[in-house]
């Protein structure tokens, strides 16, 4: 073997044994096996050799290149294993150090509950209909069978505006009339809508009462809508919303815009109806007011009440959110304290 080759071989393998990491390996490789490396340089000397020596020398250089390549790969493998072993051995961190906080956003709880409502009702064919916050007295009261001085007007403390005909809606029900008139095509088409929105009542703001609150109202009109449909539909909603087979209780009640009217209670999902502080030890939670649409309201919406019938219901998402999460103070909702909002 050529001495030059042999010297290089020794030197190269010797250096290779001394490499300890991938940088040194890369250096070694470029020095010996790279395009301008030592082995390449030997190839360059072939042409200067006597013709008869060229073949043998070439073979030796080729062999050297293969040998070094193989040695390199072995060394690389070895170092990789050593490094891996070392990393596994020594690379331990303090897993109890605090996490880097990720900045997450969040929906307001009222929006979250509204979405749950909308999703469940959409599955039952109820679509969203949006209406005004600032309403005419006629729509908020008179057309809903609450003429001026009707005793039930006292059930709702109303914000009036400087225009005596105009007020802040006290409930989403005026949307019933608007939906019937807009979608009913002169009382000729069935309707299934929910009417979500902000409502307003003139009250003292306390832990239990707010001057603005959201409501979700539902309305179904058809030629063959029955009280049993109302019960079936609300029970179905309660099952999906509260994810239980809780019993539902229907109580006779009174709303001027429905007749018959009923309050809907579900068995308290916090105590399974055994009685707790939240349900005031009655075992029931009031979740909705409902009823068959009053004939006068149907008429005011353009329908003939001797042919058409319908049901309507109204619910308070904040109240339901409070029940679900044990929120004691309704002022949290529009207080927008991030310490509250970040808990959802």
């Amino acid at each position, binding site marked *: 073997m050529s001495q030059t080759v042999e010297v290089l071989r020794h030197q190269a393998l010797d250096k290779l044994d001394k490499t300890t990491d991938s940088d040194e390996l890369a250096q070694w490789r470029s020095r010996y096996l790279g395009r301008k490396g030592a082995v390449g340089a030997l190839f360059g000397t072939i042409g200067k050799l006597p013709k008869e020596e060229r073949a043998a020398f070439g073979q030796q250089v080729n062999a050297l290149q293969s040998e070094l390549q193989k040695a390199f790969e072995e060394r690389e493998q070895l170092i990789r294993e050593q490094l891996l072993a070392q990393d596994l051995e020594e690379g331990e961190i303090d897993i109890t150090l605090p996490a880097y906080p990720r900045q997450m956003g969040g929906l307001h709880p009222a929006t979250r509950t509204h979405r749950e409502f909308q999703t469940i009702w959409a599955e039952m064919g109820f679509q969203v209909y949006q209406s005004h916050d600032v309403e005419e007295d006629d729509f908020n009261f008179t057309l809903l069978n609450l003429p001026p001085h009707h005793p039930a007007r*006292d059930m709702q403390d109303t914000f009036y505006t400087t225009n005596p005909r105009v007020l802040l809606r006290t409930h989403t029900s005026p949307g019933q009339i608007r939906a019937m008139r807009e979608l009913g095509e002169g009382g000729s088409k069935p309707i299934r809508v929910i009417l979500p929105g902000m409502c307003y009542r003139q009250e003292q703001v306390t832990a239990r009462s707010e001057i603005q609150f959201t409501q979700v109202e539902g309305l179904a009109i058809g030629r063959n809508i029955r009280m049993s449909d109302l019960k079936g539909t609300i029970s179905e909603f309660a099952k999906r919303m509260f994810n239980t087979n809780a019993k539902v209780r229907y109580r006779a009640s009174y709303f001027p815009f429905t007749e018959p009217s009923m309050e809907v209670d579900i068995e308290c999902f916090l105590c399974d109806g055994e009685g707790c502080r939240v349900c005031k030890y009655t075992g029931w939670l009031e979740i909705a007011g409902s009823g068959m649409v009053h004939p006068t309201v149907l008429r005011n919406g353009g329908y003939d009440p001797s042919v058409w019938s319908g049901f309507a219901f109204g619910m308070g998402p904040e109240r339901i959110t409070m029940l679900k999460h044990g929120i004691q103070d309704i002022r949290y909702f529009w207080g927008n304290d991030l310490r509250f909002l970040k808990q959802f």
Partner: protein
Amino acid sequence: MLVPISWIKDYVDIDIPVELLAEKLTVAGLEVVHLKYIGLPQAEVPGVRMPRSDHLVWDREKLLLARIVEVKTHPNADKLVLAMVDYGGDELEQCVTGASNLFEYKGQGEINPPIWGAFAMEGARVWDGHSDKPRLMTLKGKELRGIYNKSMVCSEKELGISDEHEGVIILDHEERYVAGAPLADILGDVVFDIEFTPNLARCFSMIGVAREVAAILGVEMRYPSFEFVAGGGPIEEQVKIDIREPELNPRFTLTLLRDTEVKPSPFWMRHRLRLIGQRPRNNIVDVTNYITFELGQPLHAFDYDKLLDRAGGPPTIITRLPEAGERLETLDGLARDLGVETILVADTAGALAIGGVMGGGETEISESTRNVLLEAAAWNNISVRKTIKEQRIHTEASARFSRGVHPSQSILGSSRGIELMRQLGGGTVAAGVVDAYPLRPETVTVAVPIERINALLGMDIEIDQAVDALRRLEFETRVSDDVIHATAPDHRLDISPDPVVGRADLLEEIARMLGYDRIPETIMADEMPPQRENTSVFIEERVRDILVGLGLYEVINYRFTNRETEAMLVPDGLPSSLPDAEYVEIVNPSASERNVLRHTLMANMLETAANNARYQKTQQLFEIGKVYLQRNAVLPEESMRLGILLTGARDQPTWRIGDAGDALDFYDLKGVIESLLGALHIDDFSYERATHSSFHPGRSANLLLRRVQVGAFGEIHPQVGQRFRLTDSKVFYAELEVAPLLRYQQRLHKIEPLLTTPAILEDIALIVDADVAANEVERVIRQAGGRLLKDVTLFDIYTGDPIPPGKKSLAYSLTYQDPERTLTDKNAARARKKIVGAARRRLRAELRS
């Protein structure tokens, strides 16, 4: 209304536990919100849940009815007496007591007519009458001033009936009383607290509740007698009635009791009134209250002699509207100005009472009254409502008349009232009733086919069931051809003569009597309405999701504000950039700082940020909500806005980077906006320098979609920030109209194919004048770079040595890529040359080497 079950049992037999009755009433619409137990145990009824009551249950062996036979002097104490009590034992029991109301019997020997007391034997559990806090005690024998005592006669407080502890309970004699009977059988009771919805005016009395109970239980009502014993001359000669406004006063009746005695009512009357929360006064006034609660027909008693004096002879009662400027001093001692629509009870000398609301002071019953003229009338409920609102008076009478009392009840009230007064005070009732009844309500008969009832209920009931339900509620019914003709009883005003509305009224009554729980639950079989696309809802929710994904929290603020707060958004000396519209102003705000509806979300958002600043190092908030712009239409324009607010540190402090992170700035906000627009696939947007006065003039911009302004954003003007107490860090805010976002978002955007050809990346740094806008440079680069230039990213801005003063260096990384073929360095070099050339020509830019 408080309803003692003992009272209801006068009219209807109840053979179910009161707890079950409460549940049945509640389900039938008379919501029983509380049960107060007096002495009786609370029953456990399967299926009925009630809060557990911690009242005293009277021991049937040790708490007894006892006759107080004699009251003797205590030999050693003036403030004590010895009550000799017959409790059914072999001997009289001697109770040492300080009860003040027994002293009047002291030393009289055997008391006659007999009186009765509530007797507690040794070992009985009672409430401690001397304790301020409720405390139970067990009676034990001990000496009281030298006399051994082991039992007692009880006060109401000791038995848990009321807080009364001045004297002991003294019952007037009744034939049925037997010494030693368990007290629970005599005074044990359960008092329901019932809330009535406005449609239940007919139930606003004991008889009204009893009727519902009878109907629910399917048993007969037992009405009290409405007959009275008359002995005097005909009343017509002694008083006349002149109704001038029959619409407001459809009926007025009068009865007269002569030579009666005004004195305290007997125990049973006082006891019942106290149970329902009324204070007993005297027998005449007590009867007016009693009948108001028993029958729901309020009564008013006049001192007849005072009327005689005023009129100078037999009076004429006139009901009329006030004369101009007329005033009346009412029983509560207030001199009242009377509104033009206030219906008055008057005589020829002037006003006596506000009809259906409150009597006047001058003719009220006093201890010296001998002759009582009793009014029972009917008043228009709307007129009464207006009066009580105007005068701010609320009485038991007005509470009933404002809901509606059927005129048929007047005569029942006068008859029963005058007879009770006679029984309690003695005297002679004049023969007959003066009854002026100018306006009779029509009798309402409603026809409803059973088929329609079943169609609306969604069930299949027999016609007999429906008829039975109505009959139990005292409707008169007739059936022909499967149609029920039902005539409403004369205590009801709530059944409509409109045939369709009347049907709904009947349907409700039938359903209530059947029980709502018996109506089946079905899935709607009706035709499905045409479905529509709710684009606005979808997109609005999508905007929320995008912003939440960008790390923002949604807030929902009050939609109220006040003018001054919004005016704070305009710095001194600058024109307002708020919407040019009137405010919707609330005439009866709950607080003066919330007296208009907002024109912008900005003030609410800044207030929210200020409230949170104490606890939060970083705030990234948004709200989607309406503003209300009053223009010429009746209703304001309700415009949906998006407000975005960023302030504080960009990163949360961590142990890695320490507390010294950067503050959020303008470009963070711009990033939020562009991410939002990107996610909505809105491409055609641009900016211009903002002119909105609430923002820092140099650090704010208008956003334009398709070259139309849709909002402004930037750093809040420092003066505005200061006014909202936001001084710790700069506040960045955007307010955009939501409608254009909905209009220009694309849900059908095209997806770009994924390129497989390699890209060439290179950097380029241009030196330009310092005032050249960055987007100008980028536009020149993009235009010059042409089709192959896929991406341009500014990665460095540099000023200072070696860049000459007045210049800046902008460094971009450029990405070249051809979808069809592999680019060569030559292609890239050509593009680069064009870019450099264009930059030189159009921006006078130099290539930085």
